[in-house]
């Protein structure tokens, strides 16, 4: 294939390298696939990552997310950063901070890491530790200091939901005292582990409105000193999000086992065989694979998307959400009020308006993201011993 063949086609601009699904935290809203533990013995090597990043860079990719799991669990992260930076990527590390020592951050700086995004679960030690099922809060505060000390902008990411959204004032006070430059307050999206725990995580409308008011007060007072992004759950909208800016349009996700995906969640979709970077180069994956072309453009769209004048704006929403809620990934995202399945969203939102849900309305326990649960929730694999 020559470049001219694909000159008019979209190219990947953003690569998200999920270098491991291993993680010391067990967050109840994690978006990693439920069967993440199945990748543990298949992780790409350093050399394979470097090759994949080079192939994507040659296609024009320029933003690189290094994420996971917890990317710090890979002891070759320094090397991957150095190689990616030399290739001309803008390199972002997305981390819980667990394992970020001064030695490592110094090496990242030398090797050209551009940006660190640190996640917090809550402003209170108790809830942070409960939600991630660990004792990590004090450690994260130390890491926040290191990030400042090494002259990185402080980018704080706090996933909001029903159990912590009422702490928004304390969360923002914490951010201010840490001299955060950017604070991303994104409500949990309901995929994977967060979908399992959806009834526990979805805030009420009243909670959202209150949080937004407090957010605006901080914005007015701090202006550009601390930039705030507040993202409401898409369930509260009547038009779907322009998920990934369209399937196979700008975003390329590489899972720890080398599976190439058009988004973080697509692994769940049945009937699509996602190519692996071990078997194919990024160019053929992006342009020629069936999976990356399946929902590209709009010829795949059924009604009501097909005749909708907003189809170029939101691309029919999210394929994974359509699949999870309606059973068919080609359906209109039910968040859209034009979707015949929209009541699946409004019923769930109605449930979230009640303060105390009955036991039969929610699953009895929050499902923590841990290796045992991951193996329990994986589809049964035939045992290699019995062929």
């Amino acid at each position: 294939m020559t470049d001219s063949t694909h000159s008019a086609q979209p190219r990947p601009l953003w690569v998200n390298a999920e270098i491991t699904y291993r993680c010391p935290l067990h967050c109840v809203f994690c978006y990693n696939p439920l069967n993440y533990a199945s990748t543990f013995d298949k992780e790409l090597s350093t050399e394979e990552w470097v090759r994949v990043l080079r192939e994507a860079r040659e296609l024009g990719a320029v933003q690189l997310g290094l994420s996971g799991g917890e990317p710090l669990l890979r002891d070759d992260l320094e090397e991957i950063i150095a190689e990616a930076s030399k290739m001309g990527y803008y390199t972002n590390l997305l981390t819980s901070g667990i394992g970020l020592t001064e030695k490592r951050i110094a090496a990242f700086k030398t090797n050209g890491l551009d940006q660190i995004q640190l996640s917090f679960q809550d402003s209170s030690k108790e809830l942070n530790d409960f939600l991630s099922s660990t004792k990590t809060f004090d450690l994260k505060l130390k890491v926040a200091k290191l990030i400042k000390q090494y002259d990185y902008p402080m980018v704080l990411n706090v996933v909001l939901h029903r159990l912590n959204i009422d702490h928004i004032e304390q969360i923002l006070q914490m951010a201010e005292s840490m001299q955060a430059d950017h604070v991303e307050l994104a409500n949990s999206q309901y995929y994977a582990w967060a979908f399992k725990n959806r009834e526990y995580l979805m805030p009420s409308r009243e909670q959202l409105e209150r949080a937004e008011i407090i957010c605006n007060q901080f914005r007015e007072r701090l202006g550009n000193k601390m930039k705030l992004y507040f993202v409401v759950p898409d369930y509260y909208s009547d038009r779907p999000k322009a998920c990934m800016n369209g399937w196979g349009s700008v975003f390329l996700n590489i899972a720890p086992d080398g599976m190439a995906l058009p988004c973080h969640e697509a692994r769940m979709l049945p009937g699509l065989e996602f190519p692996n970077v071990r078997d194919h180069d990024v160019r053929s994956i992006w342009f020629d694979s069936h999976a990356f072309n399946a929902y590209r453009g709009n010829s795949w769209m059924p009604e009501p998307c097909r005749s909708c004048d907003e189809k170029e704006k939101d691309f029919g929403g999210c394929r994974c959400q359509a699949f999870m809620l309606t059973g068919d990934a080609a359906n209109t995202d039910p968040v859209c009020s034009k979707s015949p399945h929209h009541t699946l969203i409004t019923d769930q939102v109605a449930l979230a308006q009640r303060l105390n849900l009955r036991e039969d309305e929610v699953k009895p326990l929050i499902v923590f993201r841990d290796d045992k649960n991951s193996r329990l929730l994986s589809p049964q694999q035939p045992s290699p011993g019995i062929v």
Partner: protein
Amino acid sequence: MSMVHPQPLRLARQYKLQWETTQNAYVLLYPEGLIKLTGSAGEILKRIDGKSSASDIINALEASYPGVDLKQDVIDFLEHAYNKGWITRD
């Protein structure tokens, strides 16, 4: 703010400017995104080096494109870039 000022301009610390062959354009990279620049925006931003002031940049551009009155356009763009937080000065 007035751009005609003797202090040197520099890119804000989260921003990086680079030429992208595949896009045939300069792009401005920053956390969570990128901006593909038009030809003239790229020509202006690539002259921001932490040493040159707005006047230096105008002089350099006028030397490269003799006979064209660029001053106001350059000032307008630099103000835009400053207000967007792409560039700053010490």
